[in-house]
């Protein structure tokens, strides 16, 4: 029952936050100096265009009234129409979302595997040179943002040793039999592994760039957590029972060490998603982030608003999910 109450409270807080985001985006774009109409118009617009826009968006009305018009539409599922792409915002945004989601989740998976491996190896080989090396590598990986890793990966694997693709989501000449925009998932479901391979060769470098800082954070935190857990008596007891060091780390220490790492990873995952904006641009990957930058350059207000709201929804959604998972996994919270 308490769980339900907490859930309800969180949902209300989330709704308030999202409302706040919407308000801020809306007002920032309009309150700032500059003629809002001129900003939205492509160069060479006719008087008719101006009149149309003014009518649709109520630009002659006050700003709070404009907000209500827009919010009213949103509640009904109408996010307006993109000025630069001339299509409904919602459809455009939902169309690009799967690409970004696939990239983010792939990056998350890589970060977990790399970070986890580093932590486990560092624990198994603790107080050796290997552990020292891992510490240094993690320090560097953390100090440098995904943007720079992306550039370096482009240099090394795109130019120096060109094994992976540094541009786009998929080789343009390929015929794609997909019905959804979840290319990677669908290619696996349809057993078209040739397509899976092509998609992965395009996604690997951007995902890796996103993953490196997160892997370092996971590695550091998990290693620290494991270090503390390894001293506990139940781990020593397991050793006397005949279990090997590796087994002891894996089945006794790890399940207990993971919990504190989990919450941090959730928050960091939202940063990773934020990073897709520039990484997608860098790799010309056709996702939400790339479209966002174009929208800003083109002053496409409805599209900008739609994308920002969507990002905010994703962020708050991930936070909620992390809290729920933590509550579910912690036996103390479950059985009180």
């Amino acid at each position, binding site marked *: 029952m308490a769980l339900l109450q907490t859930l309800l409270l969180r949902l209300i807080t989330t709704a308030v936050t999202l409302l706040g985001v919407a308000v801020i985006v809306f007002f920032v774009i309009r309150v700032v100096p500059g003629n809002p109409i001129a900003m939205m118009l492509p160069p060479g617009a006719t008087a008719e265009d101006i009149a149309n826009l003014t009518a649709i968006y109520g630009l002659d009305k006050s700003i709070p009234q404009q907000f209500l018009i827009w919010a009213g539409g949103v509640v009904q599922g109408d996010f307006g129409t993109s000025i630069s792409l001339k299509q409904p915002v919602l459809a455009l945004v939902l169309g690009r979302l799967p690409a970004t989601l696939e990239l983010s989740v792939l990056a998350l998976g890589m970060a977990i595997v790399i970070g986890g491996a580093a932590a486990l190896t560092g624990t198994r080989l603790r107080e050796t040179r290997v552990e020292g090396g891992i510490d240094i590598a993690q320090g560097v990986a953390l100090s440098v943002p995904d943007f720079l890793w992306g550039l370096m990966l482009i240099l090394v694997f795109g130019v120096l040793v060109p094994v992976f693709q540094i541009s786009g989501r998929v080789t343009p000449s390929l015929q794609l039999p997909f019905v959804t925009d979840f290319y990677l998932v669908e290619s696996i479901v349809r057993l078209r592994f040739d397509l899976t391979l092509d998609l992965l060769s395009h996604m690997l470098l951007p995902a890796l760039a996103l993953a490196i800082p997160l892997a370092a954070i996971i590695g550091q935190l998990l290693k620290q957590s494991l270090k503390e857990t390894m001293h506990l008596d*139940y781990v*020593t007891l*397991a050793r*006397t029972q*005949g279990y090997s060091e590796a087994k002891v780390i894996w089945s006794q220490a790890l399940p*207990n060490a993971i919990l504190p790492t989990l919450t941090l990873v959730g928050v960091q995952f939202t940063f990773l998603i934020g990073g897709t904006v520039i990484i997608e641009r860098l790799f010309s990957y056709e996702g939400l982030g790339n479209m966002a930058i174009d929208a800003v350059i083109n002053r496409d207000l409805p599209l900008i608003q739609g994308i920002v709201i969507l990002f905010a929804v994703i962020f708050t959604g991930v936070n909620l999910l992390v809290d729920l998972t933590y509550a579910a996994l912690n*036996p103390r919270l479950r059985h009180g």
Partner: protein
Amino acid sequence: MSFLEVRNLSARVKGGGPLLRDVSLTVQVGEVRGLVGESGAGKSMIGKAVLGILPKAVEITGGQIVLDGTDLLTLPPAVRRVKVGASCALIPQDPLTALNPSRRIGVQITDRLVDILGWTRQRAEERALALLGEVQITDPARVLRQYPHELSGGMRQRILIASAFAAEPKLIVADEPTTALDVTVQKQILKLIAALQARHGTALLFVTHDLGVVSKVCQNLSVLYAGKVVEDSDVADFFRAPKHPYSAALLAATPKYTDPSAGLQPVPDAVIAAVRAEVEHG
């Protein structure tokens, strides 16, 4: 015939002072031997050395640990680990930290039976149930499905005792198993350990600083001071007439509940000086 024979075992802190000096003792099949001494005397270290769980900062500098005819110190770590795991068990000191908080009680008992000893899951579970009954836990089936934080300290220690005996070990090292418990519970736990030892015929190396405990449970004892064995005798003889002055002083220092007016008799300085000289130079 002896199951465990420690011969001239010496150990020290890496880059530091000695922890064990030339320690020798034996534990026969089915025997209960007490390891007594004040804090820091090294009694816990001996148990840990046998089980292979010495802290990383400690290294063995000499001697042999012969378990069932084989010197453990000559075995490669993987072989040694399995041999110890198959024939020995530990009853740890602190029941609050010796159980994994995120796993149910049942698997914590049965896992080593299945993984290390190769039993079937069913046989392991039956064994777990039986042992929980032996340590007088009511409704053992329910306890098997519970998590450690749902149980009291006393219950957790019983579970640890049951777990140790469940593996049918030939030797159990009990590392101060009652020290972390409430006084009211200590007596029960002691009785339980003694009863199970008698029933299963397991050899028991009982590490403790409490002579009272020794008198109730052990047949023989070894007294340690600063890492050296200063006396080794059977319990009855010991309490009647200890041979070493330090042992005598220890006995005298034990509070006598039957004669409260006798007060407390700390071990005299002269005795300490003498035993220290003997240990460090003898």
